[in-house]
């Protein structure tokens, strides 16, 4: 018996070691990147997450691309020139954009790229417009609406639900003609082929338009019309276009297939292993990638990712900053630093729904807060003064982050470090609290709940620091900190129940509008969750400015408008802009040519990177 045991152990060890290869660079022409999760879909017009965008970005191509690490300079990609006022390809004061289309480009199945493919791709996306998908960006840019259904409803005078049955069929055949006319009158003329060019017609100048088109924006990727129609996507005709509108994710034929013109071809999406494999496109029109194969593999468990990097079985892994100490100094591994365009802030609800379970007693009696507690500017200012910004960034973020004057992150137009910011000053916080609600807050005290979405320790600590500081001012001040799961957050958000909440935003496109509108406009995602009183305030003071800024084509004049908006935000203490985080990227030392573009979904430039010790 004992002998068998010993032999088993010996065999086990041999087995284990037999695979250990002492090569210099493991898998030299394959890049293995370990991320978390996996793509949501490979349909460029549905995808709206970085994991999907990461794949689409290297399989499909857009008309233009960002230049290297820049987010404001562009280089041509499938177009041969980047339109500008100077070269005359932006016309009509910024309402017409002309893109000359490159010749000699082939799709992965051998078809040639034509201007018609470009026109088809954009129109398909606009008509498809899946709920909660990314197409609103192009719809806003081209037509100044938020969704295709809003657009249709406004032009035809009847809502989507008025025209369609639950099963998607028309309630009345007569509506078909109206819908066909809608396509012919609005969608078709917006993107047109003129000779070798594709021309976009906007209803008004829209400053970030080129950013919305640039490579990395999956919603502006170019499909092959012939293949797409054969697969069962929109057939390119005005008749019945509505049958291709808002399909469910899995109903799209492009859900798990991808044929583009990009430097890599999709070999396989292994859904069981959360693993996507790309191979080099040997017929690529541009400079061919040095890597023959790319594996993007979702491994949610940090220790597993870490171990694989250490063993050299992975070339780069997704590394949250809290694990910095674990990768720093690991043999054969280097750590790069960088920042994406994202911020984290706390915002207040000026009119919380009365049903909210986060208000305590619902009155200013020391056991709760009234629903309109935060509509008093003194309360908001007191909160702003009570946060120890610098200590937080140094101690909690370990220096991987910096302060921001408003919700506008560094790197975007209008960002200005010299704008006023609230200092950490408990004396001033005390003064503000004493003035709040005519002195009642100070006298009676309050009790409320601060929420953050769980899974983010930094946000939790930020809330706890704020709690400690405010409670230290007056023994009658009581704050609870509560983490909510994303589903619960979604729930409370829709029902207006969040009194004060911490949440972040990651740029859809690198333009101030994407942040300023989101937080400060009464229709913004977070603006709309700050209560009726805030919405009224925004409509009177912020909305007009935000709308003027987006239609302004002169960058200097735009920047001034954003400065003005940020000053209003400061004076009225609209929120506490906590920080703009920085990120770390852990990779093997044999990785060469890596760089970061903050707008690139995913962390790796697979098309220009290589491995060499």
């Amino acid at each position: 018996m004992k002998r068998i045991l010993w032999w088993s152990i010996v065999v086990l060890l041999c087995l284990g070691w037999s695979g250990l290869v002492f090569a210099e660079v493991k898998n030299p022409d394959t890049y293995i990147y370990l991320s978390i999760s996996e793509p949501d879909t490979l349909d460029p017009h549905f995808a709206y997450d970085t994991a999907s965008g990461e794949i689409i970005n290297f399989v499909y191509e857009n008309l233009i691309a960002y230049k290297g690490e820049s987010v404001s300079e562009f280089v041509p990609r499938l177009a041969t020139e980047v339109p500008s006022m100077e070269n005359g390809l932006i016309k009509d004061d910024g309402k017409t954009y002309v893109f000359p289309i490159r010749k000699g480009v082939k799709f992965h199945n051998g078809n040639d790229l034509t201007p018609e493919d470009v026109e088809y791709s954009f129109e398909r996306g606009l008509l498809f417009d899946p709920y909660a998908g990314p197409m609103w960006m192009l719809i806003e840019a081209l037509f100044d609406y938020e969704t295709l259904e809003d657009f249709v409803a406004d032009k035809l005078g009847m809502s989507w639900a008025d025209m369609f049955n639950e099963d998607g069929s028309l309630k009345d055949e007569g509506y078909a003609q109206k819908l066909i006319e809608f396509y012919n009158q609005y969608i078709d003329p917006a993107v047109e082929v003129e000779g070798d060019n594709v021309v976009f017609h906007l209803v008004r100048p829209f400053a970030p338009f080129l950013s919305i088109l640039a490579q990395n924006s999956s919603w502006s990727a170019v499909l092959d019309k012939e293949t797409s129609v054969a697969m069962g996507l929109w057939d390119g005709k005005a008749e019945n276009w509505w049958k291709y509108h808002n399909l469910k994710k899995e109903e799209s034929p492009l859900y798990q297939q991808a044929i583009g013109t990009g430097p890599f071809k999709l070999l396989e999406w292994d859904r069981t292993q959360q693993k996507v494999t790309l191979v080099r496109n040997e017929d690529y029109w541009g400079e061919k990638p040095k890597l023959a194969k790319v594996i993007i593999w979702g491994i949610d468990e940090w220790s597993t990712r870490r171990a694989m990097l250490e063993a050299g079985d992975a070339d780069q892994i997704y590394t949250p900053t809290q694990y910095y100490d674990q990768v720093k100094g690991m043999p054969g591994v280097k750590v790069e630093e960088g920042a994406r365009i994202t911020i984290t802030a706390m915002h207040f609800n000026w009119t919380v729904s009365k049903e909210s379970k986060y208000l305590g007693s619902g009155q200013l009696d020391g056991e709760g807060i009234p629903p309109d507690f935060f509509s008093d500017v003194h309360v908001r200012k007191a909160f702003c003064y009570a946060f120890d910004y610098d200590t937080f960034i140094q101690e909690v973020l370990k220096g991987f982050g910096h302060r921001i004057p408003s919700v506008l992150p560094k790197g975007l137009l209008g960002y200005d470090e010299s704008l006023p910011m609230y200092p950490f000053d408990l004396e001033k916080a005390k003064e503000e609290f004493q003035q709040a609600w005519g002195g009642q807050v100070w006298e009676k005290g309050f009790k409320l709940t601060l929420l953050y979405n769980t899974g983010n320790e930094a946000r939790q600590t930020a809330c706890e620091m704020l709690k400690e500081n405010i409670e230290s001012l007056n023994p009658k001040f009581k704050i609870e900190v509560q983490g909510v799961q994303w589903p619960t957050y979604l729930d409370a958000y829709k029902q207006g129940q969040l009194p004060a909440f911490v949440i972040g935003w990651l740029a859809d496109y690198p333009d101030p509008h994407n942040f300023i509108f989101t937080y400060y406009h009464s229709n913004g995602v977070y603006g709309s969750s700050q209560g009726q009183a805030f919405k009224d305030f925004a409509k009177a003071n912020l909305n007009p400015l935000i709308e003027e800024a987006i239609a302004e084509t002169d960058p200097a004049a735009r920047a001034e408008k954003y400065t003005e908006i940020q000053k209003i935000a400061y004076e009225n203490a609209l929120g506490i802009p906590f920080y703009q985080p920085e990120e770390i990227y852990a990779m093997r030392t044999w990785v060469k040519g890596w760089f970061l573009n903050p707008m690139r979904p995913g962390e790796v430039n697979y098309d220009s990177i290589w491995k060499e010790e």
Partner: protein
Amino acid sequence: MIFYVLRRLLFLPIALFGVSLLIFAMIGLLSPYQRLATFINSPERLKSENVDKLISQYGLDDPIFVQYLRWLKNVFQGNLGWSYVGKGPVFEVILERFPYTLELTIFSVIPIIFLGVSLGVISALHHNKLLDHVLRIFAVVGWSFPDFVFGLIILMVFYSTLGLFPPGNLSVWAETIVKSQAFRHITGMLTFDSLLNGRLDIFWDALRHLLGPVLTLTYVEFAFILRITRSSMLEVLQKDYVRTARAKGLEEKVVINKHARRNALIPVATVSGQTVVGLLAGTVIVETIFNRTGLGSFMALAAQQLDYASIMGGTLFFGFILILGNLCVDLSYAFIDPRVRLE
């Protein structure tokens, strides 16, 4: 006997119905917005009124019993729904992933039983002597070790520094071969498939990737078998027939192996059966740490994301396995021990 089996099998759909009702009732406690989180997973998607439109598109705002009936109708048509976590029809996803869990269970159960029984017997024979104490402490430590701690230790010590026991299913080179047209997939279990394809190198590679999780599960689970074997063996050693065997001058080896151990193994067989069934449904953490694509890690993910089609489908499947597994255990019990044979 046959009637007994039939009766138990008839009971199966009723039990599954109860399970599904229970789960659905619990999911009904969540608001439609909470359930929508499967479809909208980042703040960037919260644009305009799309959220409410999505809820009605997926019928999340219907009364919960309407949703249950709709689900039940689909189940009878053989459709368990769409898994948002698994990115495919639920049934397909389960079938795709189950072989990995089954394979891990098969490979773990062998050392668990082998070690548990052999060390249990040794322990009983050295009752209250040093070896007994050492073995019992060794076993209790394993039994008290959470599997995620031991799994992580294996990963950090053996894989990161020594290059042993890699996580995952296969190495990159082996996976390329397995994914190729020439490789036939028969059982869905990589070790068996590679043998059937005559690819010893891939068998080796698959086995190497299995070692980490197998070692973890073995150390964490074998103690139970050891304890049962030990106490059962101690009891049997006191029996008259053992004394008789010794009295008639049989060799000690024969007494232990033929007379004592065989009888001592009857309760062990039951417990082993339960261990197998338990492993099939209980490899969540080990699969996650070692990045194995089994059913356990899938269910953990589905639960996190409130993907209720997957949760329902997975639960039904586990219910099915558990009931069937327990039936097999009961039947084998009757087979091993003639005294409890059913009529």
